[in-house]
Each structure stands twice: as C-alpha cells, then as structure tokens.
C-alpha cells in the first residue's frame, strides 16, 4: 500500500470522515488504474479503493493476446501486476477496502467503506463486472463442489475429468483452451446456433481433439448431492433433454456489473450497468464511470484503458472548472 505525501486539498469537515480527496476512484482494474496514472501525473490528490487485489477481472484470465504491446500475449495476472506497478509510481493512495455505499448528493460526496467514510469532490466508478450465473436449479448449491466461475483458479481439481464449459464467447473458448491442459474431455454448451468467440480461438479448439461444441443447447439443471455428477441440457427448439455425466462445469455466460453498492444513486440500465454520456459523465454531477461497469458495446482491456484515461481527463477539467 502506498501513501501519498502530497497536500490534502481540503480538510475533512464532517465528523467521522477519515480523509478528503479531490478525486476518488472506486475499483482498481484496468480502467481504475489507468485513471490513477492520469490523476497522479496531474498531481490531483486522489485515492483508489479496491476490495480484492489490483488488476480487476483480468487477474483470473489465463491469457490475453488482443492488448497491444505484448506481441506474444501475456497472462492476465501479470498484466494486472504491471498496471498496478505503473500506477503506483504516480502517488495515488491505495485503500485495500470494500466500498459499501455512497452519497452523491452530499458536497463533497461521501464514500463509505468497511473501514470508515471518505469524502471526494469527484468520483470515478470503475468497479467492473463479475461472472453471470445461469440461475438454474442446483447451481448455487454446487458452486465450489464441481461448478466454478474461474478456470485459472480451479482447473487443477479437474485433472483427467470430463467437464463442460457453458458459453462459447471469447471467455468460454479461451478458458476451455486452458482447461484442456487438465481435463480429459470438454463439451462447450452454447445456447446460440453459433459460437461468438474470435475465429482465431475457434481454430485453436479444433486443433485440440478433446473439445466438442454443443450448439443450440442450454443447461437446465445441475445434478449432484454433495458433488456435481451430471448436467441436464436441452436442445433448443426441439425440447429434447438429456443428461451428461461430468465432474466439473465452468460458467462463462456473460457479466454482471459490480454496482450493488450504488443502490440506485445514479442512472443505470435494467442490469445495473451505468449510463454515461460520451465524456463518461453519469447522471450525477461530479460522478464519472469508466470501463466494463458502464453501458458500452465492447468490454475489453483496451477499451477500459481508454475509458480510464478519458474519465481522469474529464475529472481534471471538472475540478478545474468548479
């Protein structure tokens, strides 16, 4: 954890407030860490809150090949560490604590954490996303007992086993490639009649004989008492159900935003993604959103980086124009 020696722009006035900052970034993924680099270099007194470890969702991504600057690819974990190393050079203070609530109506605004409250004149929400679950019977009970949302975390448990991966988007296919180093066989279950992953990834799974694509199918149930033993799947349109004997299931069916702590304090869509304008301003003055957490047509490291830079730039303009 790094502590800045820079001046505090304003003293905390409210009782019980630990510190005041000109800007607060919530979330230390690619967008948040990029914003920290830009704010730090502008000598803006800022803090970044992270409840887990810096790097965000990418730290549990096996391999990233579409982020420029790494022609041979790089593991998500290593890329996250490099982002953190670079951002920590510029003096933004890191608080390794969970943000539990906000008050965007107060001025300065209030950020509540497990360790107390902070105030800030501008805020960037960059809390990213987490894996979406299927919401079918048996899922909740068997997570950690055969069902996993993180291949790079849990793959060693499935050495020599038959498993399924749900979802044939980029994440599902990329993580299937990683899982193929452990599992005996992999069936990828996709609801659509075609996979949506990049062609380069699809070509790779063809090269690995043990991966089979099961298109136009959806999972209807996970079965097992204390461990996953079977997955029930249904063929779309034909209503035909069958049961696959498996020991593991990895779920990659999309993302949900980490916006629960905002409790509806800014405009969001039905799923909880934050509405922003082109300048990444949210519906509340002084609050910006960057990266995967906002409504955006593409959620990639490259797009999050751009968002982080733009949000920090707009925060700087906002603070200067007050």
């Amino acid at each position: 954890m790094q502590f800045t020696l820079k001046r505090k722009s304003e003293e905390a006035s409210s009782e019980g407030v630990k510190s005041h900052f000109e800007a607060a970034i919530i979330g230390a993924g690619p967008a948040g860490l990029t914003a920290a680099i830009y704010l730090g270099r502008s000598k803006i007194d800022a803090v970044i809150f992270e409840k887990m470890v810096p790097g965000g969702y990418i730290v549990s991504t096996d391999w990233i090949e579409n982020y420029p600057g790494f022609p041979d690819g790089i593991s998500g974990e290593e890329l996250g560490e490099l982002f953190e190393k670079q951002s920590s050079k510029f003096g933004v203070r890191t608080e390794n604590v969970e943000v539990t609530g906000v008050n965007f109506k107060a001025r300065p605004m209030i950020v509540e954490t497990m360790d107390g409250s902070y105030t800030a004149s501008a805020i960037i929400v960059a809390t990213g996303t987490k894996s979406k679950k299927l919401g079918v019977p048996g899922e909740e009970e068997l997570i950690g007992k055969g069902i996993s949302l993180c291949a790079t975390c849990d793959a060693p448990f499935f050495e020599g086993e038959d498993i399924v991966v749900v979802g044939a988007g980029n994440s599902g296919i990329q993580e299937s490639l990683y899982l193929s180093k452990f599992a005996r066989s992999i069936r990828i279950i996709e609801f659509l009649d075609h996979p949506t992953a990049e062609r380069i990834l699809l070509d790779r799974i063809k090269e690995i004989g043990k991966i089979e694509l099961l298109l136009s199918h959806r999972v209807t149930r996970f079965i097992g008492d204390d461990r996953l033993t079977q997955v029930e799947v249904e063929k779309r349109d034909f209503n035909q159900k069958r049961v696959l004997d498996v020991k593991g299931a990895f779920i990659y069916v999309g993302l949900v935003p980490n916006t629960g702590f905002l409790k509806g304090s800014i405009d969001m869509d039905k799923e909880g993604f934050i509405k922003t304008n082109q300048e990444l301003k949210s519906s509340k003055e002084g609050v910006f959103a960057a990266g995967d957490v906002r409504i955006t047509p593409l959620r990639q490291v490259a797009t999050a980086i751009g968002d982080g830079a733009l949000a920090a730039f707009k925060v700087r303009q906002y603070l200067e124009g007050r």
Partner: protein
Amino acid sequence: MKVLVYTSSSCPYCKKVKNFLREHGVTFKEINLNFHRSAAKELKEKTGQTGVPVILAGNYKIIGFDENKLRRILKIK
C-alpha cells in the same frame, strides 16, 4: 496452530487471504495446486471442495476469503 493455505496461481481470493494473514503476522504454509497437482485430488477427497482458497487451521476448514471466520479461528483482533 498449524495453518495450511491451498491456493492456485491466478486466484484473486487466494492473494487476498495470503495478504490478510501476512498483515496480521500469521505464519502459514502455502500449497499452490498449479505446482502440486496431486494435492488437488487429495484436497477434493478430504474436503469435497473443487475451489480455492481453502484454509486448514488446526481442525477447522475455511472456504474462500471469510474474514470473520479467519479472525475468529485464528484469534485475530
């Protein structure tokens, strides 16, 4: 109390547990399943778990990063 922490290389909750234990001066032994692949099978048989982190502290088993449970069992204030 002997503390064993089962981890894997890319698991963010594993890092969170290790950081927490180090911060509070708890000595522990780490078993990274990426480097000890047979340990995954043993752990699965012993605990029924197919996810990390798993922390074995004396006779207690803690699944995931559960700060309250860690504090209670390891007597961390």
